[in-house]
């Protein structure tokens, strides 16, 4: 079991460019979560999917952020017109099921730097 795989590990973009982050959840896990981590804000919830369907995207900045899960083996987080304040580590996590007591398994994250 390779765990949750996130690519790329590091991404540098210029202000105004687009960034796409990829996540491959653990095989057999039905829930996928996206978080953003910064020193100031800690772990911020962005969005999550259950069986590929979007369940809660209340943490997503509406205008430039979007997330998809086209199949059970990967999810993407797209940031359009990146801004310096988008610089953060973006963490993807998956869990076996949707219930409250299920453990989140995090990927190593993608460090996004917007210049």
């Amino acid at each position: 079991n390779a765990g949750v795989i996130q690519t790329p590990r590091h991404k540098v973009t210029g202000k105004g460019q687009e960034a796409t982050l990829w996540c491959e959840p653990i095989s057999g896990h039905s829930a996928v979560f996206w978080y953003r981590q910064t020193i100031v804000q800690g772990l911020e919830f962005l969005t999550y999917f259950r069986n590929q369907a979007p369940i809660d995207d209340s943490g997503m900045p509406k205008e430039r952020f979007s997330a998809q899960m086209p199949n059970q083996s990967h999810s993407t987080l797209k940031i359009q017109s990146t801004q310096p304040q988008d610089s953060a580590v973006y963490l993807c996590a998956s869990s076996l099921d949707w219930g409250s007591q299920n453990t989140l398994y995090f990927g190593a994250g993608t460090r996004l730097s917007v210049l």
Partner: protein
Amino acid sequence: GDSVTQTEGLVTLTEGLPVMLNCTYQSTYSPFLFWYVQHLNEAPKLLLKSFTDNKRPEHQGFHATLHKSSSSFHLQKSSAQLSDSALYYCALSDRCSNNRIFFGDGTQLVVKP
């Protein structure tokens, strides 16, 4: 709405002393509580989580007791080790919030020789 509060941003202590990291929560339903640990340059991973039957979860010498009366789930260890230095997140999940996981701001634990 649901929320988790970790009052200490940084805790520094000497190896061998007891550890206690505070966590209180607000929830409209009966939640599950978790502690996640993140070592430097690593992903967060589960340290322990609450049980439904009031048992006290323990892992790697750490334990936490869910006190519903005070809405707390403090993390404790009798004797800190240098390797315990890490960022600790308390988290909550309940059915009323679509099982979304709410994280506290995190507590950085630094253990010195």
